[in-house]
């Protein structure tokens, strides 16, 4: 555990002390809030609707998470810093897990900062704390899968651009798999299968304030599979 924490701290610092972390961080902080209050015509409607905050978070995450994870391994492969990591008493699983956890916790910090929106709204009226908590949990679940996907892609290439582009594409596929099936007019087993792996489909209950056990299993299962592939990618990229 001590080793994991040391590796985690080191990874977290990378994001904390670099523009590479702060730029996506500021985007995560500003865009959902702006969308909620400015573009959402929030003040005109007079209804405290937080759904825009949640939906804009998904859009923001789909761009910022790949931007954060693209350097997880790619940058170290490029600079050769991974050689030192490989000589430390860290197992590949711990290395991968520390990187993924660092990005996820960095995202969670900004998610928490965005809680200022419902908190400020609670001054004007009643806010459903349960609904907010479930939506917040849903966003963490989606972030978890996205981070695992980004780290997985990054573990296979030394190009940050390739990692970024591939992560965005894979995320889009994963997110809208069921919609694409429907749009193409494909029906039956393929659509059902696409729906099972669709992030959008799995996230939907959380937006509505429902905690779906199957969805939680899906999010954790998907994360585990992607991180396992990342471990394989890291090991196979060895010297």
């Amino acid at each position: 555990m001590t080793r994991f924490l040391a590796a985690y701290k080191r990874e977290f610092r990378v994001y904390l002390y670099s523009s590479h972390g702060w730029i996506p961080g500021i985007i995560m902080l500003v865009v959902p809030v702006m969308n909620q209050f400015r573009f959402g015509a929030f003040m005109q409607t007079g209804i405290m609707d937080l759904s825009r905050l949640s939906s804009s978070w998904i859009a923001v995450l789909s761009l910022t998470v790949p931007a954060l994870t693209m350097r997880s391994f790619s940058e170290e492969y490029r600079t050769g810093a991974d050689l030192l990591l490989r000589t430390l008493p860290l197992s590949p699983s711990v290395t991968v897990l520390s990187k993924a956890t660092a990005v996820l916790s960095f995202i969670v910090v900004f998610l928490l900062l965005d809680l200022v929106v419902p908190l400020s709204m609670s001054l004007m009226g009643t806010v459903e704390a349960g609904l907010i908590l479930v939506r917040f949990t849903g966003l963490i679940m989606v972030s978890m899968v996205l981070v695992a996907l980004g780290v997985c892609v990054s573990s296979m290439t030394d190009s940050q651009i390739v990692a970024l582009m591939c992560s965005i594409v894979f995320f889009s596929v994963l997110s809208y798999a069921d919609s694409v099936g429907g749009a193409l007019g494909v029906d039956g087993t393929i659509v059902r299968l696409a729906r099972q792996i669709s992030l959008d489909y799995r996230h939907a209950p959380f937006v509505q304030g429902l905690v779906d056990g199957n969805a939680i299993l899906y999010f954790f299962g998907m994360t585990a599979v992607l991180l396992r592939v990342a471990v394989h990618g890291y090991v196979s990229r060895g010297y």
Partner: protein
Amino acid sequence: MNAKTDPTLQVVDLTRSYGSFKALDSVSFTADAGRVLGLLGPNGAGKTTLLCLIAGAIVPDDGRIGIDGVWSLDEGPEWRTRIGFVPEESPAFTHMSVREYLDFLSGVTDLDRSERAERIESALTTCSLTDVAERRYEHLSKGYRRRTCLAGALVSNARVILLDEPTSGLDPQQKEDFSRLVRTLADNRVVVFSSHNIPDIEGVCDDILVLNKGSVVASGSVDDLLTVDNRILFLTIDLTGRKPLEDSLLKQAPFPVRSSSVRGEEQRIEFVLEAEGRQQELIAWAVANDMQISELRTARESLAELYRGLTGQQNADKAGKEDL
């Protein structure tokens, strides 16, 4: 085998290929604590591959590595706590201060917090980094970066320290300081010093392992490897306030002169002894001609010559001089 009687570092039949290219072929050697082992070889000889294998960064196709009688394959990542690796390229942990970097490296060992703090302070002191401890890595000079990397290898319980081209890019003063530091580190550890810079190796190493095309072509102590040629005598005379010896005088010497050169206030003359045990004749000749003898010694094959002979490197001398 009793662990106490084992050499600190044992490498047995280590083999590693990249595709069809055999980077290392059955490399075996041992090294004891308190010794600095120089790893010498041309580019592509397999030096870095060997260091990476010992450090556990890559897995051998065949063979095994032991430290204090414990074999790498018997333990997982735990085994790497016995090794401190200083790679050729400084790690890209530019966002960290020297202290944070050392804290990270000590954090991945199983030492408790107080011992970690002690080790960090000790490493900072040993490597003369106390004054720059809070400075970020990216703001350090090359010399300090190398020292930081070396300090990183000291914060664990490393019994073997691996240095991959540690003096590259350092100025002569920094090289001298670094070499002195390396010597002090070898007190109770094995230090493996990889370089293609012959003077650096010669100045700091007790033993040498020469690699060529993935195989060991020579190994042993520096003294054993460099044969002494008793037929050649080097006479160095002090020229302060005097003129260099003229050719006419050199022709009167008891032995034929092979070469003569003047460097600053010194003249160095190389004689070919025609028979053993006649050095006294040369001394008598020098004294009779009022020469100030600075040094008189028999010739020793240089490491550069040995290296050239073993590896077929024509530019060994030149490379060594350029790096000075």
